[in-house]
């Protein structure tokens, strides 16, 4: 079989995790020298990306770098393994971290933000936790990094230290710590029932545990990873968390944190239960209904938001459920579409958040109703915005089209035409909530925005690059970083083995 694999000992996954905490220490030590401090961030981002990309070729050849450190509890090791699913997630997160780093520097300095040291240090820890989540070889390792990510994001959510930020922080913790507790119980139950926690493509839980037990464990997992992935009804922390600075919303609330949630979904469905068992115990239907409802409701709610970032947040909630939907359909195409959407949505949504941040940094405006005619002042930013918006609506040639195409194919092949309808409707709704922004920006007259005045290059260039990346994913999905092959390898290793 083409996806037969073997593991080999390698320090690379560990280094990919450790490079940013090391940077975090250096960042804290150089708090008095902003330029040096930001150098560490950039170096760590580039280093991390280099480490991740060095693993792409071997992983595609079926050679998975892995390292088992020591027992974190008797019989359970702290172990990292870079498989195609993990590498594709780590790759998009680390690639976009580089761009976000430059963007952050531009954004934070333009706005003369306070506590920048804390900001950059927390950011580095978040990325480290994301790598740990991507490469975790078993559930306990996954849980550890998952909780670290929850905590490391908290200082970024409350960064503004305003009353709104603190209350958003409380909401964030209430949702995420509660879901973390559910995840902990799910992992503990898995350990007691199965005696192992090791991820394995196609799942390791046995049907002999009985439907009730399995469904109970699954629901706990659902709550556990559902909150981070914005699945309704656990989503409401995400729009509130938009009070965080834009680069945080961009990378964490569109790429790293929320994707860690859906990535967790993929791990649970594909590597703990297996798609077949998930369907047999009725969990797939449950998740399918929740995700389908989330897609539609989030899109409708997005339309009602005047604050641009909140509109983007609801859009994110909807799109995360695309991915969740992909993982519970028993078709390789659905998995492929879902997993590929992790990357394409990342590229598109980060572009949109970058645009929102650029507009805010330049003009101080956050509400769509105040952005009439802004296309005149910031034409490049708005062009990137259009690219991202088109992609999310599923218009070719932007990457979003491809993932949606595969998802649609998966929905049809697995015999769920209703879900095809959901996807199509969502495309229209996406257009519905992005179109007004574009119309206002270009076709409404404005007194304020009369001459060309873009955000600083540190912000402008990253957002143009991410827009280009989104298009590249649509035209040439295997691109330079082999995203398509990685996703395909992951999808087929899970579904080919897990299908009944």
């Amino acid at each position: 079989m083409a996806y037969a694999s073997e593991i080999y000992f390698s320090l690379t996954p560990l280094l990919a995790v450790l490079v940013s905490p090391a940077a975090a220490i250096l960042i804290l030590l150089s708090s008095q020298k902003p330029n040096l401090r930001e150098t560490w961030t950039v170096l760590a981002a580039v280093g991390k990306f280099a480490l991740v990309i060095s693993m792409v070729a071997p992983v595609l050849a079926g050679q998975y770098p892995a390292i088992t450190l020591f027992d974190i509890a008797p019989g359970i090791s702290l172990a990292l393994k870079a498989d195609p699913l993990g590498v594709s997630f780590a790759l998009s997160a680390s690639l976009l971290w580089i761009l976000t780093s430059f963007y952050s520097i531009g954004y934070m300095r333009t706005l003369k933000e306070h506590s920048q040291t804390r900001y950059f240090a927390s950011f580095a820890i978040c990325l480290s936790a994301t790598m740990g989540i991507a490469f975790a070889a078993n559930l306990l390792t996954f849980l550890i990094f998952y909780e670290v990510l929850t905590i490391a994001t908290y200082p970024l959510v409350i960064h503004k230290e305003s009353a709104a930020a603190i209350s958003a922080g409380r909401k964030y913790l209430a949702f995420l710590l509660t879901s973390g507790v559910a995840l902990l119980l799910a992992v503990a139950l898995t350990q007691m029932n199965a005696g192992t926690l090791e991820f394995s493509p196609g799942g390791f839980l046995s049907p002999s545990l009985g439907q009730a037990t399995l469904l109970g464990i699954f629901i706990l997992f659902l709550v556990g990873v559902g909150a981070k992935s914005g699945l309704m009804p656990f989503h409401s922390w995400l729009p509130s968390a938009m009070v965080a600075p834009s680069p945080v919303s961009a990378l964490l609330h569109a790429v790293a944190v929320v994707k860690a949630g859906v990535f967790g979904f993929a791990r649970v469905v594909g590597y703990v239960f297996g798609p077949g068992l998930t369907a047999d115990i009725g969990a797939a239907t449950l998740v399918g209904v929740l995700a389908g409802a989330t897609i539609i409701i989030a899109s409708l709610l997005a339309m009602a938001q005047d604050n641009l970032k909140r509109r983007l947040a609801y859009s994110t909630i909807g799109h995360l459920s695309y991915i969740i939907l992909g993982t519970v359909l028993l078709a390789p195409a659905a998995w492929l579409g879902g997993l590929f959407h992790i990357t394409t949505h990342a590229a598109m949504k980060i572009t949109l958040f970058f645009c929102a941040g650029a507009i805010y940094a330049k003009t101080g405006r956050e509400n769509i109703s105040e952005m009439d005619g802004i296309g005149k002042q910031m034409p490049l930013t708005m062009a990137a915005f259009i690219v991202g918006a088109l992609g999310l609506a599923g218009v070719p040639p932007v990457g979003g089209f491809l993932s949606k195409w595969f998802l649609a194919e998966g929905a049809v092949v697995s015999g769920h035409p209703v879900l095809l309808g959901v996807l199509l409707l969502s495309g229209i709704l996406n257009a519905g909530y992005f179109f007004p922004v574009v119309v206002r920006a270009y076709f409404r007259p404005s007194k304020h925005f009369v001459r060309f005045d873009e955000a600083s290059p540190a912000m402008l260039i990253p957002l143009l690059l991410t827009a280009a990346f989104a298009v590249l994913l649509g035209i040439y999905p295997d691109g330079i970083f082999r995203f398509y092959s990685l996703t395909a390898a992951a999808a087929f290793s899970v579904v080919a083995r897990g299908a009944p």
Partner: protein
Amino acid sequence: MSHLPVLIPVTLLLSAFLIPLAGSIKRDFAFAIALVGAALAFAFTLAGLFTVITQGEIRYHLGGWAPPIGIEYVLDALSGFMATVVTLIGLVVLIYSRRSVLHEVAPRVVPLYALAMLLLAGLVGIIVTGDLFNFFVFLEISSISAYALMAIGDDRAPVAAFRYLILGSIAGSFYVLGVGFLYFSTGSLNMADVAQRLPELYQSRAVAAAAIFIFIALGLKMALFPLHLWLPDVYTYAPSAVTALIAPIMTKVAAYALIRMLLTVFQPAYLRDLLPLTSVIGWLAACGILYGSIMAIAQSDLRRMLAYSSISQIGYIGIGIGLANPLGIIGALLHILNHAFMKACLFLVAGNIRWRTGQWEIRRFAGLGRTMPWTMAGFSVAALSMVGIPPAAGFFSKWYLLLGSIDAGNWFFVAVILASSLLTAVYFFRVLEQVYATHTNEESAPMKASDPPLSMLLPTLFLGAGLLILGLFNSAIVTYILNSVAQPLQRPGS
């Protein structure tokens, strides 16, 4: 024959006697002797623990008199582990204490150190002794020195200490009564000997009464809900260093004693299966977890909050004892260690805050994250560990307790353990918010960082860093030490 078991308490006892003599010459000698004594005791304990792991338990006959006539001291995996926890925390807190004590209660330095060493001697004595009556002697040594230590402090301290004295004396009398019943039932005071003779007497009412008396006594000393009433005031009004010494270890030693009674004296077959005292403890502990957490949320004073948090955390240990299965006891013992580190760290932080600001009102903590960055880093780690965020140590004791509860099919315990994580998060994040995200009104020049002097800061950070190391390497502790302790609880056929 190795003298290690007896050397540990004797070293501490000797230094307790030397301190008043040397202290009358020069006040600083008191601290020096205390430090040397504690360091030596820790070294002996470590050597003892190592010997136990490599060569098995050490039994020492005091004065060469063989038991059951003579008094026996036993260093096995359980007592070795526990003695290490006590002497290590004692040493770290003593290193910290010098400036803090001079700052808060300068005139009473010499008696304070003498009493502190006496307290430590009593506590390790309880741990290493293999004799039920000798246990009582050490219990009284530790209790009486604790009353005196607690009474040093501000105006309200003597009243709080007096209340504890009354309850503590009741506990002491109950214990003696219990031991009396055991003695006239079995004719022996040696723990191993009593254990051997008890199975024939399992139906005896006197033995049941003994068990109940002893358990009430130890429950009181452990501050097991609802016998916790003495604790909050005592922790709040004593000097910082004293609280930091007493809070992490004293209640834990009582918990250790409960485990010792369960494992060695009465045996699981009796206390778990015949007279299900352990499950009573478990259920009370579960209530205590919830009660302590909720009360902690309601406090506005940091030290009072920590005191209630202790009541709640002791509940975790109680749940482990209540489960009385291997995973439960592993969780309980690991939590004894972890919580000792966490509480010591938190009370040292409280001492640091007192050192700089003179008060403990949480709402006045705004901006401390900027002015005391290192202290607050220690606080953050300890707080996250209390909440149970991995890889901090607190997560792992909860992990074993959770597995143990699932194993026992006790879903109420599962729910309590998980819910209390969230309640703990509520009261700790309330402080963290205040410390990091609330501005002081002065927008003047950036305040200079003013962490306390290194002699206070380093012990705080040592404990904070220790929490991460204990968390990452908990598996070694479980595999090499605790597994063998928990072995007798394995139910036949499972």
